[in-house]
């Protein structure tokens, strides 16, 4: 049963189309990610769900009730703002109590819940301080605590990790998953970071220019992106894209021809010399073995090496094309810039996009 559905949401600011017909559904108890670059419309979407923004068109249905045009107060949701929006003149404790104050809870229960949240989010020691005296991580956890304390049905998180440093971001990702598991609430999480979306999201809606481009599990987005935008957004290092021409079910690349990908059947119906983009992930390239297999073998030259600790990213040059591959550190140490290296591209994992529309062909 879907607890939240957004249908055909449109919102314009002057000439800017912040939302251009966004639709998606969130299941109860799901950890749902909105993934998109900055200015894609994530914040606008969340604000529309919360009721802070009135839509020009479209509907928001939450928990079986049409919320379109309803006041903010009537919705059993909480939101963590990108800027945290903590009340600067109140202490952390008062910030936490804030959502409970109007609801008629007695003092004992309020105290108990504040204590619980303080423990859960590890901010118990800062409860009597003002937000401005707290560290970035503590402020962020306080903002989450304030959203959780009312135990809302739906939690909206707007880039809650963007303002944190890398280490803290890593820890908090795990913490979010733990919270989600323990509290079992539905979460809609907006982020521009594909890694956050892939590691936390049960399902991900990729949003771009106010449009939902693709909805799927992290695995689906990674393996079968709907178009070039999703393909390059998801996965790191970024997918290799090479201009190619398709004829007769085969793709002509700068360094050879490949004909046995998952797209072969579809491509056979395309006119000759169709302009294409050939995509393959840096993880799907291997050093070539001694005997020739079904994989496309490429003789390349090392153009650049980027050691990243446990792995190394090699920039390879073959023909006019430059592409990346990922190697475990111990295999990569033998290569210097300028060395020749033979690699294999696994045809099963390759992707094909139309060069004009960017749509995937498979």
């Amino acid at each position: 049963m879907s607890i939240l559905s957004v249908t055909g949401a449109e919102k314009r600011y002057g000439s800017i189309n912040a939302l251009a017909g966004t639709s998606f559904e969130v299941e109860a108890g799901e950890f749902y990610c909105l993934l998109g670059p900055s200015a894609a419309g994530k914040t606008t979407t969340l604000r529309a769900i919360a009721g802070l923004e009135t839509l020009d068109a479209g509907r928001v249905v939450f928990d079986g009730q049409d919320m379109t045009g309803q006041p903010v107060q009537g919705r059993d949701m909480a939101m963590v703002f990108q800027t945290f929006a903590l009340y600067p003149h109140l202490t952390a404790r008062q910030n936490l109590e804030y959502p409970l104050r109007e609801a008629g809870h007695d003092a004992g229960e309020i105290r108990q819940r504040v204590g619980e949240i303080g423990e859960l989010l590890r901010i118990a020691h800062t409860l009597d301080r003002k937000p401005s005296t707290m560290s970035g991580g503590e402020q962020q956890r306080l903002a989450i605590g304030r959203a959780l304390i009312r135990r809302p049905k739906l939690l909206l998180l707007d880039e809650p990790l963007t303002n944190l440093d890398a280490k803290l971001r890593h820890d908090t990702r795990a913490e979010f998953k733990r919270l989600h598991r323990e509290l079992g609430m539905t979460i809609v999480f907006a982020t521009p970071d594909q890694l956050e979306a892939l590691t936390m999201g049960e399902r991900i809606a990729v949003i771009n220019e106010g449009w939902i481009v693709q909805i799927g599990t992290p695995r689906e987005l990674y393996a079968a992106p709907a178009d070039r935008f999703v393909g390059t957004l998801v996965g790191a290092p970024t997918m290799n894209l090479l201009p190619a021409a398709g004829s007769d079910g085969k793709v002509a690349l700068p360094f050879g021809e490949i004909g046995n990908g998952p797209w072969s059947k579809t491509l056979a119906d395309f006119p000759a010399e169709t302009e294409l983009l050939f995509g393959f992930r840096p993880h799907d390239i291997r050093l070539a073995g001694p005997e020739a297999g079904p994989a496309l073998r490429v003789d390349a030259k090392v153009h650049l090496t980027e050691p990243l600790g446990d792995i190394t990213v090699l920039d390879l040059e073959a023909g006019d094309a430059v592409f990346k591959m990922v190697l475990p550190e111990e295999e990569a140490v033998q290569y210097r810039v300028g060395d020749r290296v033979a690699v294999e591209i696994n045809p099963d994992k390759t992707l094909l996009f139309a060069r004009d529309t960017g749509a995937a062909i498979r």
Partner: protein
Amino acid sequence: MTAVTSDATGTPRWLTPSPRNWRLALLIAVVAIPGSIWLAPGNVAFWISFVAVSAVTLAVTINAWGRYPGPLLVAPAIALLFVMNIFPLMWSFGLSFFRFRVNRQAPPRFAGLDNYEKILTDPTVWDRLQTTALVVVFTVAIQMIVGFLLALLFEKEFPGRRVLLMLVLTPMMLSFVAVGAFFRFYYEPTFGLLSQAVRLFTGEPFILLKTPAGALAGIVFADAWMWSPFVMLLVLAGLVSVPKYLYEAAEIDRASWWRKFRTITFPYIRSLLLLALLFRTIEAFKLFDIVFLITDGGPGSSTETIAVYVFRVSFQFFRTSQSSALAYFILFIVIVLTNLYLYFARQRSQEA
């Protein structure tokens, strides 16, 4: 150190005549000015003093030229401040310990604290202070409330807001004399707007300024009309400085209007409200122009504020030194008020 260094001839440097030797010029001026006032007739003494002061100024300027450009640039402002403000202030302070009337030939005679004793035991002074307190309490209260409500109104966007805001701010920019004259006509019994409006209902002309209470109300209304926009401006500055997202967060946290106001809005305008209160109280305490123009303290002396009384003592009764003492007494009250407010303001901001 400079005083003991000598040049080749053995005279100390501060005695060597030179255009930049301001010490020597000052010495000559200090001797020449009192000397000429004492010995020479008035007009001669004036010109001697004038030349001496000019010489000192010139010497100081030449001395500082190129060496202390900063101090030299602010010097004219400081000199003007001294001549126009500080010197008269000190002079009148000195005068308050003497017996002196500007409309008599008699030179000032030292009188110790006589003037202060006289004003502190004068029941009229206390009566005028009471009148002033009444005006202050009413006008400041009305200004704070009206200004605050206006600010709440103008915080929101609505069509015509800018134009209306400009109109509302106009009274504050008018001169006191214009406002005073305007309200005198407004309250005028025969053709004044107020009187005519009342006559529509009662058939009788309405003389607001006839009764003490009416006159007080007239003054308070005029002053509040003029200065409510000032309070509004300060409060508005506070209101617009509240980040919007705090209200949105509060909305999501389901806070009531009153809670939002108390926990979000008020902290941002508290210090500005205090500032407005302080400014307006001090200004209202010194209220003179409007009273002088609208009621001239009448009927009887029922609306004579302390400032009007000081004016009467000094320029109608010509008790110059006594009015100086009275002016210093008022200054003292204002300073005490100011410090009280600042004390409370600091107290509150430490609590917050």
